[in-house]
């Protein structure tokens, strides 16, 4: 293989390598972004990370679609349940965070 192919604007690089790079950089971002959270908001932080980790709903929705479009019905069912669980978390997590954050007020001058 000539190195032209190796270069090729990254075309010869497997997606998994790109994803690994993304993962590593995201860990750096996570590290910095979490350390910069003020301790007073650590409880909302726990609630909101909960909510955003439910983005795994993406996988659940694909499972439902997969089942419905000729895949195994196991997928439909596990997918649908997972969608419901994630939805509890998403709505519950963001709304409870919002409720908490709404309580943090500055001194009325």
């Amino acid at each position: 293989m000539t190195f032209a192919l190796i270069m090729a604007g990254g075309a010869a690089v497997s997606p998994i390598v790109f994803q690994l790079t993304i993962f590593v950089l995201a860990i750096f971002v996570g590290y910095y972004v979490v350390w910069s959270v003020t301790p007073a908001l650590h409880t909302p932080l726990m609630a909101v990370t909960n909510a955003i980790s439910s983005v795994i709903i993406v996988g659940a929705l694909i499972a439902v679609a997969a089942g419905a479009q000729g895949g195994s019905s196991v997928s439909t069912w596990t997918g649908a349940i997972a969608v419901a669980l994630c939805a509890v978390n998403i709505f519950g997590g963001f709304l409870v965070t919002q409720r908490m954050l709404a309580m943090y007020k500055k001194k009325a001058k």
Partner: protein
Amino acid sequence: MPELSANLAAILYTVSAVLFILALRGLSSPETSRRGNYYGMVGIAIAIVTTFLVAGMGGTGFLFAGAGLAVGGVVGAVIAKKIPMTDMPQLVAAFHSLVGLAAVLVAVAAFFSPDSFGILNDEGTIKAGSLLELSLGAAIGAITFSGSVIAFAKLNGNMSGAPIMLPFRHLINIALGLGVAVLIGMLMKSGGSDPTILWSLVAITFILGFLLIIPIGGADMPVVVSMLNSYSGWAAAALGFTLGNMALIVTGALVGSSGAILSYIMCKAMNRSFISVILGGFGGDTSSAAGGDKEQRPFKQGSAEDAAFIMKNASKVIIVPGYGLAVAQAQHAIREMADTLKEEGVDVVYAIHPVAGRMPGHMNVLLAEANVPYDEVFELEDINSEFSNADVAFVIGANDVTNPSAKTDPSSPIFGMPILDVDKAGTVLVVKRSMSTGYAGIDNDLFYEDKTMMLLSDAKKMVESIIKTL
């Protein structure tokens, strides 16, 4: 429904990942936090809509997905609206268990419809790499699920907080851990032909989750919850690799770091090692070393009238809330007391220890709920030098976070943990129900000092009588 191109979808997922970063970034200050939360909501909405379009979701799929969303959404919204703020620790644990279970279900679904998930190789078996990611996702998810259930039960009082120490538990855990590794290897070798292996993996990791958490005392649960939060992040990231999904990979890393950092902060502030927390056995009902030869030492006890009199004549009062405030739900009462004192011209502020209460930021949320402005609430580093200028330190339901043995007694289990220097204040008023110990199970010399007056009562009742007298 129209289908999206793979590239456009990937870009949209990246956008939602960036919005999640901005959501966490917003939490660097209360002012920006609300906007940050909206970013998070928009981010998840983009991820969901994108997935509907990518998957060309229609017909049955649409019904199932819609039903799941609707049911789950309603349940979640109702919980969020109803839950009392004092129940946040158990709520977070409960929510984690759901994420963990969802991860398991997604892994199972991918296993049964590998074609639609695009994880088949040319021979028609599931790619080994994908099987590894799937089984990691499932295993971590299952541990998160069962571990969080136990954490929830301990925090919510459905189960005693005492550590349950099985004989040979370390051996059992190691054996199960080896079993997990073997099963993952078998799964990868089978190419996904045998679902029994996957089911066994899920079953073993469910059990492992239970076993890992039951020996840990109820009071250590916050560290555990945070650690499980971290796990759920890594599970999401593992599945993100399977799905080639940017939003999942980035979010997984964010959540994974967040949980790990919070656990670290808690351990650091308690001056305990993470390992010792995880090995368990701490914080049960048994009193610790100091408990044995405890002599009955003299202390000064006071009444609500005494306390009211002292504080009315003070020019500066620092309120130090602790776990007892949450137990007694005294946050509204204390705000009222502070308001009354302020009307009398007393300067009142709050001092929060990083691990006061039972989860990071616990006291801040309770005070915020009671409408205490956050600029009257100070972190340890910012206020500790102020105690020497204060006439009164009003300690309410706090114990360990004020224990001077952390500074003076190298043999104390909390030695080295930073504490609030309440003993620098002119007078120390301590509200608690008895002379018994707090979370760490050790005696607090502060209570026996000359300048200390104990107000033995439930925090809410005591504060309410003080208000009446003022």
